[in-house]
């Protein structure tokens, strides 16, 4: 089975059954990473380019490992060492890479919409590995897989996402992903980090973490992206942490069987207290593990099998 689409650009335009297909495929690929020889020949002869215009450790490594475990040839390009630094436009870079006939380009880019623009220029598949403040579909898919694995379902769950919602592509992808699978999503941020009209995406909007988490099944903490703030959106990190950081005291208001997610990298002691990040109910490392499986599934579903 393959996805009947060329690209994975957003969760917004994925249908529920497509998301479910990706999750079940990812589940079946998890086993590969547990083997002694962690490789299947499925994508032998396929070429995947990881084109990263932003620094990334986790996501880039995850895509690279996923490609290699599927036996595809993976090439990494980072903006600082590439022709981008010489002033080439995204379109020209895309056209030049396309001339070398890759099967898929994985794009991480600081500008919202860049993967969509890229996909319009070239014939090979494009996977969005995070674009500006827009979407990060593979992250949402691995979050969905992690929650589904731990809690057995998504439908009917209450998910709370806390942090810099304005600048978060993880939040946007997760709002669409969790609501499409039947969960109820609430977003929590100070008003300075809550984007206009976000409720129209189908989520609840709350300003105080204490009110939001009392009946939550999952709390997802987001990193404060200070690098995206032109001016500080809150007075001090200390005050943000006191009001919106997840610590043992606030967590006391949550249900006993709560689970905690964080897309990483975490800022210990800022949005999440160190002991909580390391607690058994923290699924942070499960997320990372599932990331590889989800990305293997995406490659397989876009590039695998015989081509029409």
């Amino acid at each position: 089975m393959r996805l009947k689409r060329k690209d994975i650009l957003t969760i917004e335009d994925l249908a529920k059954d497509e998301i479910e297909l990706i999750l079940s495929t990812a589940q079946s690929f998890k086993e590969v990473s547990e083997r002694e020889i962690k490789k299947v020949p499925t994508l032998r002869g396929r070429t995947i380019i990881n084109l990263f215009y932003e620094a990334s450790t986790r996501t880039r490594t995850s895509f690279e490992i996923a490609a290699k475990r599927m036996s595809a040839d993976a090439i990494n390009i980072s903006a600082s060492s590439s022709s981008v630094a010489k002033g080439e436009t995204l379109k020209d870079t895309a056209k030049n890479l396309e001339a070398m006939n890759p099967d898929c380009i994985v794009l991480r880019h600081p500008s919202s919409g860049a993967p969509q623009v890229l996909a319009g220029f070239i014939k090979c598949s494009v996977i969005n590995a995070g674009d500006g403040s827009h979407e990060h579909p593979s992250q949402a898919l691995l979050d969905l897989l992690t929650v589904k694995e731990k809690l057995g379902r998504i439908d009917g769950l209450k998910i709370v996402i806390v942090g810099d919602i304005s600048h978060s592509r993880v939040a946007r992808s997760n709002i669409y992903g969790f609501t499409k699978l039947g969960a109820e999503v609430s977003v929590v941020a100070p008003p300075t980090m809550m984007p206009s009209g976000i409720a129209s995406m189908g989520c609840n909007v709350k300003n105080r973490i204490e009110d939001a988490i009392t009946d939550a099944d999952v709390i997802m903490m987001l990193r404060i992206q200070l690098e995206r703030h032109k001016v500080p959106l809150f007075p001090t990190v200390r005050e943000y942490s006191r009001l919106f950081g997840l610590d043992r005291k606030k967590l006391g208001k949550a249900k006993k069987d709560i689970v905690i997610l964080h897309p990483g990298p975490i800022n210990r002691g800022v949005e999440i207290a160190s002991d909580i990040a390391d607690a058994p109910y923290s699924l942070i490392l499960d997320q990372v593990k599932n990331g590889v499986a989800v990305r293997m599934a995406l490659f397989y579903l876009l590039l695998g099998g015989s081509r029409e």
Partner: protein
Amino acid sequence: MNRILIKGGRVIDPVSGIDGLFDVYVFGGKIAAVKPSIPPGSPLEKGGVGDLDDWTIIDATGLIVCPGFIDMHTHLREPGYEYKETIKTGAMAAAAGGFTSIACMANTNPVNDNASVTRYILKKAVEEGVVNVFPVGAISKGLKGETLAEIGDLKEAGCVAVSDDGRPMMNTGLMRLAMEYAGLFNLLVISHCEDMAISAEGVMNEGFTATRLGLKGIPNAAEDIMVARDIALAELTGAKLHIAHVSTKGSVELIRRAKDNGIRISAEVTPHHFTLKDEAVIGYNTNAKMNPPLRSQSDVDALKQGLKDGTIDVIATDHAPQDIVEKEIEFDKAANGIIGLETALSLSLMLVSDNIITLPDLVKKLSANPAKLLGLDNKGALKVGADADVTIIDLNKEWIVDSRELKSKSRNTPFDGWRMKGRAVKTIVGGKVVYEG
């Protein structure tokens, strides 16, 4: 001497209150007569009887004949950015859109902040431009918002207004000085109203669409605040203030109230702001990126109401050519602006077919009103003795916008592929036909 007789058209001249079937006789670059029927070769007060071969007869049966349109907000990009547009190509685009005069903004390179640049533009316009070009001088030196440009020199050299358009005047103190000083020359001060402390790094209208696309928003308040400020300064200084490219409901309301209070204020709106909503950006369409941004439905409705009740005096294009290297890129990095000279009339005629405004009212907002604001005494009307700038429109002409076919050097229009009705079929400048469609 060249004689033109425009026969049998529906002549609309809001200034003289004419709307009916008339013949228009042009002689010596001026309007020589407007009468119910002028047989070719007939004796007239101006021009007299000539050789019949001398007369160019234009059959305007079924067409609209009106004063040549005046776009008081164009970016010609010359000097400095000739790869986007030149005075020659911009003037050709204007003629094709029915505009016989254009006022060009000062944000060229070098900036039009001194008389030598003004004279350069005017010289090029005479040599290469098929329409009249009226430079707008800068308010501040280098558009930096720090010290006044030599506004007196600019006026003498031929500037018809002053504006730092493209750059909001954040320095309130300097804006006050500019308004006071421009008053000395009875010059219009055109203000691009935007509080950059709020618009910051915004790239489109703030709201759900921006949030969904992950793009930084510009709230209406960024414009409203500056409109309110400039109204207060106009009241303080008594200056002639003109608000460029109004995009918000709040601005319309503020301007309406200021007019009610007797403040000398006028305003313009662009066809794209009353035609498109911010959803046009979906798909990261950089041809829907401009400043001010496309707004919401309630803003569009308010702009139309403002046109209807006279709060908004002028339709202007904000024609802003950009090369593909500035547009075929990531949305947040793309340049602002669209070309507008060749689509403005067709888009504006939709206001007439939707019964928002009448055709004479539209003609007024495209000719008489801008002429008055810019002090162009011999333009904007079809009265005897006026410059023979005439636009002839076929209201029923259907056409499809093809950006490759446009006269402008740039292709950045969100209306590519749009089906339009109504277009200029002849543009006459100073008694010379400069465009035939």
